[in-house]
């Protein structure tokens, strides 16, 4: 088949244009793809910064709460015990030897109680250190402390003790959540029986706590937004991408289920 010179010119021009359009199309697409990739990376960086900032904020909140608990314990418990000790010691009359022994024993008991409270506070303050030994062991120590109080019948299933995994960013938050729940039970629930069930399943940590206390109205408490309340617990669990479900029936008890991606 013979082409005329005009046809050949048209063929060369159109053919070359097509073969030049392909690289042009590729370059435009690459530029767009590169821009989108850059945006995605920057968005991810922003999210990471936001997450770290939230995490830091929560850690500060947790520290703040710990300091408040310490201050409150020092004032309400240890302060009272020491004041009572001082009063008892002040009331000692050396001219009444028959009451001396009794008062010294009372003072000694009060001092021992103060020491016990101080140890409890020291353990609370050293949460970060405890977490370094593993979350399972930290939870065990916390529950042992509760057991020593002797006011509760406990049923504990802690499968984390023998697991050698950790998540430094999450561990302290989880431990503080547990401490917060225990403190709430001690202060408000009037419970006599508490169940703890801690385990990991499908890369998730499950923390289930159930008591037989007086329960509470969840909506009412949430509306108050006071102090380190339920809202703060919900916020902290959400921060580490977890879920928390609280069921409470007045006069029957409360159950709390926390599920957190782990490690």
């Amino acid at each position, binding site marked *: 088949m013979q082409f005329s010179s005009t046809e050949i010119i048209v063929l*060369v021009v159109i*053919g070359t244009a097509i073969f030049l359009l392909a690289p042009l199309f590729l370059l435009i697409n690459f530029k767009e793809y590169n821009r989108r990739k850059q945006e995605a990376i920057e968005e991810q960086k922003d999210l990471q910064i936001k997450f770290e900032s939230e995490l830091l904020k929560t850690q500060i909140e947790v520290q703040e709460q710990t300091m408040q608990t310490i201050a409150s314990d020092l004032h309400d418990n240890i302060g009272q015990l020491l004041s009572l000790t001082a009063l008892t010691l002040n009331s000692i009359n050396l001219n009444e030897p028959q009451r001396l022994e009794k008062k010294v024993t009372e003072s000694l008991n009060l001092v021992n109680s103060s020491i016990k409270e101080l140890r409890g506070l020291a353990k609370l303050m050293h949460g970060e250190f405890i977490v370094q030994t593993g979350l399972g062991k930290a939870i065990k120590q916390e529950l042992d402390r509760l057991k020593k109080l002797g006011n509760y019948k406990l049923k504990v299933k802690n499968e984390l003790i023998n697991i050698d995994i950790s998540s430094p960013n999450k561990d302290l938050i989880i431990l503080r959540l547990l401490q917060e729940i225990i403190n709430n039970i001690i202060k408000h629930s009037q419970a006599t029986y508490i169940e703890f069930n801690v385990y990991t399943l499908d890369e998730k940590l499950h923390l289930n706590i159930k008591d037989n206390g007086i329960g509470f109205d969840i909506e009412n408490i949430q509306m108050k937004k006071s102090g380190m309340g339920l809202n703060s617990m919900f916020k902290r669990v959400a921060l580490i991408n977890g879920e928390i479900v609280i069921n409470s029936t007045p006069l029957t008890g409360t159950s709390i289920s926390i599920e957190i991606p782990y490690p």
Partner: protein
Amino acid sequence: MTSDLNIVFEIVCLATAVLFLRNVSGIFTFFTIVYLLIVCSTEIAGGIWTSRFGTSNSWIYNIFIIYEAAYISFGLYVALKGLTKRAYQYCSIAFMGFLVTYGYELSSQSFFKFNSKTVLVFSILFSFNCFTYFYLLIKDKNTINLKQNGQFWWVAGVYAYYFGGTIYNLFLQQSSYPYIILSYTMILLNLILYGFWSYSFICNSRQQK
């Protein structure tokens, strides 16, 4: 006239390279300037030969394409080695393909006839390597700053020149080809190639700052 325009593009590109790459160290920068000097010398020598002796200057370009294939292969190797461990294989295959076709054409036709099949073969192989570069760049999790990435624009120029020149190379295989339109096509291709390369030298200079 067409030859004059090509020389202008090449000299401008060489001047840009000397101006913007003078503070950019590296073996590839050195080869680039040397190669562009060879390009300009070849173009001038080819023009002088034709005007003085009135015969084909194809033998000059037959020598030149050895430098061209070597330089482009090395440039693509430098670009690909940051993206794949097989960069050496890709570029070796392209250069071997060139050598085999070149050897075949030297043995099958006169040295004074242009080795157009060799040019067609290495154009396809270089286009493939350029395409591989872009594919790997898209797959790479990192992004690049196009305003500072001279390498990207260098490969883009090579890709546009060799892939865009497919029709040109195909017509060059014919015994009687439409000379004028192919000359204009070559001017356009040269403008694209040296334009992209000049911009790549500016980007390299920006990156250095």
